[in-house]
């Protein structure tokens, strides 16, 4: 009898040894998208890529949800927190107000927010130097324009998107002091029709290159550029493939990288919260690979972009940041 018990005990222990690391090694991650949702080929899709990369490479369990509207953000945050997930990632500043409350109500749940900061110990804030990346595409636009007029289409007129605008304007003027920059805001991140309208109107006013920082709204900007024969510059994800030859480049923002990194920290057990900044140096922001437009752009322009990049890193160029 004693022997049997011992045997059973050993077996139980063995099974436990085999099973337990499996459980311990599979953190559960929940991700809540911003408005616009999946398929924007921009901001949200970048977050999705990071999530899927983490699923494949780190073996984490993932669930995600696309909120139908801004009023739903808090409900989803609470629901994921209730599930006791190891990390709840929320995409976009639009989540901030709700997260400020929810993260206090659930002090034992780890949260991460992309694009804004929430100063609670259980929140990791993932922010980017969008103004610096936008400066680089501003330099490109300033040198490539033939009409000395370029355009900027923003999503909502909030400080975050102003950051893109200011960087773009400064970059364009740095490269070409005579350039005029037309600026319009669509008022939404999920309205491609409005994006198309604004881009066409800017083109009619002389802009031959239009940069958008408008998420899903921006796909309308790119469509308009392709249909009317002017250039567009994409944002967040590499959007060059959306209209090859029309999208000069994209101001790629490493949302995927940030999402992956924060999940990795959870998987490694090293997550400590705080603010994580991603900039030009670490590849957090920058230009795309120019896969379709290499032959369109003179080498001198590439040199100017590289030069500006080096000067921003060295501190010789300081791009204004409307948030500071």
């Amino acid at each position, binding site marked *: 009898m004693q022997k049997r018990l011992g045997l059973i005990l050993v077996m139980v222990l063995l099974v436990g040894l085999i099973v337990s690391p499996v459980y311990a090694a599979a953190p559960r991650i929940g991700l809540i998208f911003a408005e616009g949702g999946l398929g924007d080929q921009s901001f949200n899709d970048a977050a999705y890529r990071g999530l899927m990369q983490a699923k494949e490479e780190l073996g984490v369990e993932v669930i995600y949800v696309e909120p*139908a509207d801004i009023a739903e953000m808090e409900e989803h945050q609470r629901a994921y927190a209730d599930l006791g997930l190891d990390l709840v990632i929320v995409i976009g500043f639009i989540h901030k107000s709700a997260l400020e409350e929810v993260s206090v109500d659930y002090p034992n749940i780890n949260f991460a927010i992309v694009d804004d900061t929430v100063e609670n110990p259980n929140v990791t804030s993932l922010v980017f130097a969008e103004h610096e990346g936008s400066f680089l595409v501003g330099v490109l636009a300033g040198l490539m324009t033939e009409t000395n007029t370029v355009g900027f289409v923003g999503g909502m007129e909030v*400080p975050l998107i102003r950051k893109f605008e200011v960087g773009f304007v400064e970059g364009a003027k740095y490269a070409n002091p005579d350039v005029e920059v037309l600026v319009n805001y669509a008022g939404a991140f999920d309205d491609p029709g409005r994006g198309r309208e604004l881009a066409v109107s800017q083109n009619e006013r002389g802009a031959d290159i239009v940069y958008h920082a408008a998420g899903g709204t921006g796909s309308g900007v790119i469509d308009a550029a392709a249909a009317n024969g002017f250039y567009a510059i994409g944002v967040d994800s590499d959007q060059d493939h959306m209209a090859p030859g029309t999208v000069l480049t994209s101001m790629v923002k490493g949302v995927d990288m940030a999402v992956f990194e924060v999940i990795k920290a959870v998987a490694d057990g090293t997550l400590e919260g705080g603010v994580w900044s991603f900039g030009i140096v670490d590849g957090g922001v920058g230009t795309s690979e120019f896969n379709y437009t290499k032959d369109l752009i003179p080498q001198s322009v590439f040199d100017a972009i590289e030069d500006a990049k080096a000067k921003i890193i060295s501190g010789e160029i300081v791009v204004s940041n409307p948030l500071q």
Partner: protein
Amino acid sequence: MQNRTRAIRWQEMVTPLVAVILALAIGAGFILFVGENPLAAYKILFVESFGSLRNLATTLQRATPLMFTGMAVAFGYRAGLFNIGAEGQLYIGAFAAAWVGFTFTGLPRLIHLPLAIVGGMLGGALWGSIPGYLKAKLGVHEVINTIMLNFVALYLTDWLATGPFHGGSWVPETARIKATAALTRLYPPTRLSTGLFLALLAALAVYLVLWKTKQGYELRAVGLNPHAAEYGGINVAKNTILAMAISGALAGLAGTEQILGLHNRFIVRFSADLGFMGIAVALLGKNHPFGVILAAILFGALQTGSAAMDRLTAVPRELITIIQALIIFFVAAEYLIRRILRMKEGA
């Protein structure tokens, strides 16, 4: 006579029920079509909306604003007016309630909360009475006016909440209301609030006004036949304005409840078509306040269940939107259902 009324009542209940069942059946076909199991999907839908006290609370929370907007549309309909402007009246009411909520400080709750509620009601009533006045005095059709005023309300509150009353965060929203203006949460951490009781009270009030008062009789008479009502000595213009004001006040209360009970601040475009959903709710609820309550709970459940479905499974929530649309379709196609049931008026 008694039997006849009873038969009609019964029939009025049957059409929405059949519509819901038909919509679910066809929805099952769609779910099969996208390669999911309809029974499993409906089970999640049901469990996540009614399966626990907590889920039930979320369902009721989502149903509350629809009760108000549904009643707003139903009230207008009873007076012969098609109020498509509930969305706009909701925004104006919501902003007014939020404004009262964050502007006044140091008031006791007993004064502050009712003040904010009345503020929201008045905001909606004012916005609703504009098309009422235009219809009564100038004969401008209320459908055009209410639709157009939706845009005015939307952009006006956009501007107010991002301009003069912006709260300072990046989110386009106002400052938070004071705690003294907030409705009480009934079952935390869900966000169901005492706004639900307000909605039930409003339903009772609407019922009493419409069917138990002289004023209500006048309103309904105008709705049934304005010319006959006028001939009978009823002031049609006055009743038109009044009906739109009350309808607007109910829509304003929907916004008020959302701000004081749920968001505790005015968020730009928070409504997500609650006002337009109200049209569907009124239709399904047969333009009766008690029917509206039931219809709102059904729609609240569908929304709660579909949000959870989206959160937990791969079944796209658009499927639930299709089912909602089908329900409305079948209620609107009442004649079709009657034919199916071989029911004749009064049989």
